[in-house]
């Protein structure tokens, strides 16, 4: 008798987004798994419509499986059988016909009937002696869930319940999902969808857990409890590794950790180039717990404190006091170094406010960030009050996201000064010289940078969104994710333009997107005139090491001409070529992604 799943080792390849190697058990988390479904009786006149609804959901599921199957990389075609069998189960009489019969005979809704059919099959499978066959119920469950999802689309399960050391396998994780992850339990995660710079990826980097995304069919190919090796350096995921492979990866794991700590040990040293130019290397943060990492890795302050977490975590809106306590704690720990707090960057979809709770067609272009705040001034004011109050306890800078032009900036400033007056009247202490700046992440703001620079103390270039908006690429859409290119010449020219505007107006300018923490990008950003970088803490040691290993003069000489190159691939190839000559050791350790 076969034991376990009886499957042999197979390797999937995705996009490596968060470094490190882990070996552990798979936990399939279907984020759209429907837990609550409604049971109701159907009137005779509506029965045929209900059956039609079920058939449509089956049809949609079939289309989805076909897309999955056709999108399978050549190397995995051998596994397409799994999807074929799912397709057969989808149309199987025990599931399909049985459900239709139940809707008809018992006059119940499709979800209920389907669930009943599944339970019946489950019962029969449970009685099968052959463990290999009885486990195939997993396939039936997978198909049932897919149909249910297409029937309702109810999405409210929780990741917070996970309480053993596992590797999460999911179709996709939203920032909300990742914020629920219990990082002492979750070793890392892999997803079907997503690109290098999806929010989930960014969160994972912050959490310092290895992650591979864009695997396309991981949720179909990995079984619950199977042993996985996730290589966050190369993007490889090995399912059911044999003993030899496990030993090999344990060895690699060890080497990776050793090199990482050798760099981290000297991370307290200032980031000064060999020819004496100091670069501020700061930390991006998402939640309070990360403040320790920001210090530990030798940051020169927090360059971006994303303030969304408290809003995502709380059921209603967080109170001013809650926000203030959180900000104050971060500010006090980081002081005297500055903490830049970015005001709310959430979309209306994240708030359960009746008026805004409708789904937007294009959330990225919708009511979010500063637009949302200007339309909901009370929410905005509460946050500004908390930020101002925290400024009394250290050095705080406030930053507005998604500014598209001067009018928004003026409107935001007006509310800001109104809040200050309010605090004055109440005699509440705050830093009167607190610096105020904006994110440059919308192309129109790049074009208007010279004007905007007259009204702020600093610019911070949010490259992730700027790339998305400038190149019209949805970075979580796996079909176009490869066109999300930090090295696109248009983007580099935009950064150059923003730096020039900032230098002319004598204000500070930094980069706080993923680019700032990408070892490959350091030389080019320095050459463009950036002298402040803010990144996930875990990237700080290696970025500092790079800065300490090069001269600004060489960076300018090497990368000054990059703006003349015409395509992203040309730029990338050129930059990689120069960087690997400058930093052969890092290249060898896999830190420079060609």
């Amino acid at each position, binding site marked *: 008798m076969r034991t376990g799943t009886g499957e042999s080792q197979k390797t999937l390849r995705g996009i490596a987004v968060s470094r490190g190697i882990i070996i552990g058990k798979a936990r399939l988390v279907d984020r759209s798994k429907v837990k609550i479904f409604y049971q109701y009786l159907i009137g005779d006149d509506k029965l045929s419509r209900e059956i039609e609804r079920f058939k449509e959901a089956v049809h949609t599921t079939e289309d989805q499986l076909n897309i999955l199957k056709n999108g399978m990389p050549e190397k995995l075609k051998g596994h397409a*059988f799994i999807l*074929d*069998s799912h397709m*057969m*189960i989808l149309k*199987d*009489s*025990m*599931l399909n016909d049985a459900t239709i019969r139940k809707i008809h005979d018992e006059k119940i809704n499709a979800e209920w009937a389907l669930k009943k059919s599944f339970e019946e*099959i489950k019962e*029969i*499978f449970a009685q*099968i*002696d*052959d463990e*290999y*066959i009885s486990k*195939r119920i997993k*396939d*039936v469950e997978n198909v049932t869930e897919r149909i249910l999802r297409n029937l309702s689309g109810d999405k409210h399960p929780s990741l917070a319940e996970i309480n053993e050391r596992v590797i999460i396998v999911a179709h996709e994780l939203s920032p909300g999902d990742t914020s629920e992850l219990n990082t002492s339990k979750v070793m890392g995660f892999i997803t079907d969808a997503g690109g290098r710079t999806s929010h989930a990826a960014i969160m994972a980097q912050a959490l310092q857990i290895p992650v591979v995304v864009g695997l396309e069919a991981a949720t179909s190919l990995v079984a619950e409890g199977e042993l996985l090796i996730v290589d966050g350096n190369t993007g490889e995921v090995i399912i059911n590794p044999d003993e030899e492979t496990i030993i090999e990866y344990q060895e690699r794991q060890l080497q990776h950790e050793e090199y990482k700590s050798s760099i981290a040990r000297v991370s307290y040293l200032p980031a000064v180039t060999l020819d004496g130019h100091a670069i501020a290397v700061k930390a991006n943060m998402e939640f309070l717990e990360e403040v320790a990492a920001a210090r530990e890795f030798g940051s020169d302050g927090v360059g971006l404190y994303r303030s969304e977490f408290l809003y995502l975590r709380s059921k209603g809106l967080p109170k001013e006091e809650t926000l203030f306590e959180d900000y104050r704690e971060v500010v006090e720990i980081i002081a005297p170094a500055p903490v830049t707090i970015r005001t709310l960057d959430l979309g209306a979809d994240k708030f359960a406010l009746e008026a805004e709770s409708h789904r937007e067609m294009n959330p990225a272009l919708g009511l979010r960030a500063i637009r949302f705040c200007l339309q909901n001034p009370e929410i905005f004011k509460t946050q500004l009050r908390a930020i101002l109050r925290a400024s009394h306890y250290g050095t705080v800078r406030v930053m507005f996201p998604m500014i598209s032009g001067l009018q928004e900036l003026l409107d935001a400033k007006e509310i800001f000064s109104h809040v200050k007056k309010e605090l004055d009247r109440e005699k509440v202490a705050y830093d009167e010289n607190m610096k105020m700046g904006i994110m440059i992440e919308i192309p129109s703001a790049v074009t208007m940078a010279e004007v905007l620079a007259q009204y702020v103390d600093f610019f911070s270039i949010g490259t992730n969104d700027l790339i998305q908006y400038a190149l019209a690429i949805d970075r979580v859409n796996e079909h176009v994710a490869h066109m999300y290119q930090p090295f696109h010449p248009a983007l580099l020219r935009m950064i150059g333009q923003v730096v020039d505007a900032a230098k002319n107006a004598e204000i500070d300018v930094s980069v706080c997107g993923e680019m700032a923490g990408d070892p490959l990008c350091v030389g080019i950003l320095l050459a463009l005139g950036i002298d402040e970088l803010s990144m996930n803490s875990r990237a700080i040691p290696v970025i500092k090491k790079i800065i300490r290993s090069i001269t600004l003069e060489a960076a300018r000489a090497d990368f000054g001409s990059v703006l003349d190159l015409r395509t992203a691939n040309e730029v990338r190839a050129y930059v990689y070529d120069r960087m690997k000559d400058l930093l052969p050791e890092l290249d060898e350790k896999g830190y420079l992604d060609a």
Partner: protein
Amino acid sequence: MDEVVGKIKINNDLGVHARAAAKIVALGNKFESRLYLKKGDREVDGSSILAILTLSCPKGTEIAARIVGKDSAAFMAGLRELVERKFGEAK
């Protein structure tokens, strides 16, 4: 209506697992006739991959195939061939 009945012995190492069951269903899709598989006194619909799996047929199992319909003879020949080829598996 034509009906053909025959005994079939499963002789591949893995028995009628998911892939083999899928091949039986796929074969059936080419014929008009309907297949019923019987083990002991339990008979199941041979066009359902799940039903075939629940029959649980490891190597050495003897099952009875009953095929009803115009092209039942050809279907039976195809089924025998599939089982004798060990569902295309090496062992």
